[in-house]
């Protein structure tokens, strides 16, 4: 049996600087042993522990979709010891990843429904995984209308710009990208995510909202969806806590009786209501 504490060896295959502030990068990782890719079969919404030897580990949501074969991607903001070391890495470096960890976006529950994806800033990563998964030709029929509302503070802080452009050309996706404040070259929408949600006003009929973003965005976005009539069962989000083991043993990421690493990170608002408010 696989020792859950031991990472799979991976090579940093490609590094993409996502934002103009240069502190968010996407790391495309390839497995050193091809058979490990099978063992790392993941579902959108799960996360991995990125392992840099000599520095430690940090839990990061998986940004690629399982429909993208041959690699796994993580989009990482430079913040602490491990992520700073990661940002200083060059392509070709050996590192490790553990996982996949945690539950996932509830794909079976989402199937057959209209999906509203709402993302803010850097929290868009596992939503991107979900969108790419749903848009894949093998899966698109399983989901109804897909509406995406994604905002960042400035145009330069939007992640996955090429992909956003591609999605914008599609007819089977209602894409709404917004920035708090545009610049001279920005031709898109301006405005905060909650306001855009109100404007787009997705129907609650047979719909689920999947929302990820900074706390301030969540705080103002939820009332919009309540007003639109979405039930708490049909608003789904993902939590973050400090983690170490990722498998519910080291004892630090619990919210009440649930470990965010093992029982989460994905919870519906109805589920969150039952947890203690300590996150």
């Amino acid at each position, binding site marked *: 049996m696989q020792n859950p504490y031991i990472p799979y060896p991976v090579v940093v295959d490609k590094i993409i600087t996502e934002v103009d502030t240069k502190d968010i990068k996407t790391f495309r990782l390839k497995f050193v042993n091809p058979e490990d890719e099978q063992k790392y079969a993941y579902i959108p919404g799960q996360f991995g522990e990125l392992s840099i030897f000599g520095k430690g580990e940090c839990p990061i949501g998986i940004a690629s979709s399982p429909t993208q074969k041959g690699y796994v991607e993580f989009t990482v903001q430079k913040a602490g010891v491990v992520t700073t070391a990661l940002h200083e890495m060059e392509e070709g470096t050996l590192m490790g990843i553990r996982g996949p960890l945690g539950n996932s976006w509830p794909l079976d529950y989402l199937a057959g429904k209209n999906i509203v994806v709402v993302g803010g800033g850097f929290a868009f990563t596992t939503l991107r995984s979900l969108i790419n998964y749903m848009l894949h030709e093998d899966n698109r029929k399983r989901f109804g209308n897909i509406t995406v509302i994604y905002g960042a503070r400035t145009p330069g802080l939007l992640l996955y710009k090429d992909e956003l452009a591609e999605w914008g050309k599609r007819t089977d996706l209602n894409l709404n990208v917004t920035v708090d404040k545009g610049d001279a070259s920005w031709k898109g929408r301006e405005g905060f995510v909650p306001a855009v949600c109100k404007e787009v006003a997705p129907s609650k009929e047979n719909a689920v909202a999947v929302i990820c973003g900074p706390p301030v965005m969540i705080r103002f976005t939820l009332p919009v969806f309540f007003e639109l009539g979405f039930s708490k069962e049909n608003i789904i989000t993902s939590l973050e806590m400090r983690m170490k083991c990722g498998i519910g043993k080291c004892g*630090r990421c619990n919210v009440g009786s649930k470990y965010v690493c093992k029982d989460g990170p994905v919870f519906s608002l109805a589920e969150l209501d039952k947890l203690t408010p300590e996150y």
Partner: protein
Amino acid sequence: MEKRLIKKDALAGIAKKMADDFLVWAPVKKEDNVLFAPLGRNDEPFFSYLNSKNAPKNVFFPHTETMMKYTRTEKGMTFSAEVNKAEQSVLFGVRPCDAHSFVLLDKLFDQEKYKDGYYIEKRKNTTVISLACATPPYTSCFCTSVDGEPVSSDGADILLTDIGGDYLVEFVTPKGEALSKYFGETKADAQAESKKAEIAAQAKEAIKSKIPAHEVKPILDVNFDNPFWNTIHGKCLACGTCTYLCPTCHCFDISDEVKGSDGVRIRSWDSCMFPLFTKETSGHNPRPSQKERWRQRTMHKFKYYVDMFNAISCVGCGRCVMYCPVNIDIRKIVQDISKL
């Protein structure tokens, strides 16, 4: 299973004989403390102890443990899992409360989905010999309130009970029975057994400290925000002694250490009493003060563990009560909660 009698003064000799064949962890006197330590050739086990200062959980879950090793190469690091083979061991003479803690820790480390091989391997290869508390050692003992008893084979492979001049030796599991050759030939008679039953009843009766550990669960379920939580932590120093000595506290940290081009990833005990335990990189801390940390510790023992594993995560050893430098008493906390 079979029961035998051994002379009381034979016990140390048996432990030492076993130590010729296995790694034997036994209580030994170290300065002012009694601690479980591997029994060396010249060590004398000390069985007339009350309880060891540290809980013996470190036998299965050491303070610090290597999880993997790695070596620097031109391209980064290559790594290898630490070889995880535990040698055949005997944990000789633990108190029943501490043996009970192993049953509780098993629930966490040996779950169906994620198995903690480091713990399981040592646990699997260790025979636990409990030394019953014929006379309960401390007034702070409260095992009978948390599903324990001073004379109990819970978590043990062999149970030794002082019945006067002899120890009654009970082989509880096949793993225990496999060591029967060390315990002489004298079969226990009915008289010894009835004497043991008498002592067990007396010992149970002698535990006077009681807490409503089961009764507080439904109260904790609905009192996360009760102002009561403001009343515990004021004097707490966040020293972590309670969690360090606790037989069931299992929180750990994972960190890397590098020396030259070689490094190790280790895990070490950590504590929910420490501010950094839950502090996130952003600066946000879901448990920002000692108040939330005390609530977590109390809830974890008497509610969360019950929700997760249907068992209270406290064995009533009383170490946290005895050694807290500012006299925070978990018994009083539980009693106060029962009145909310």
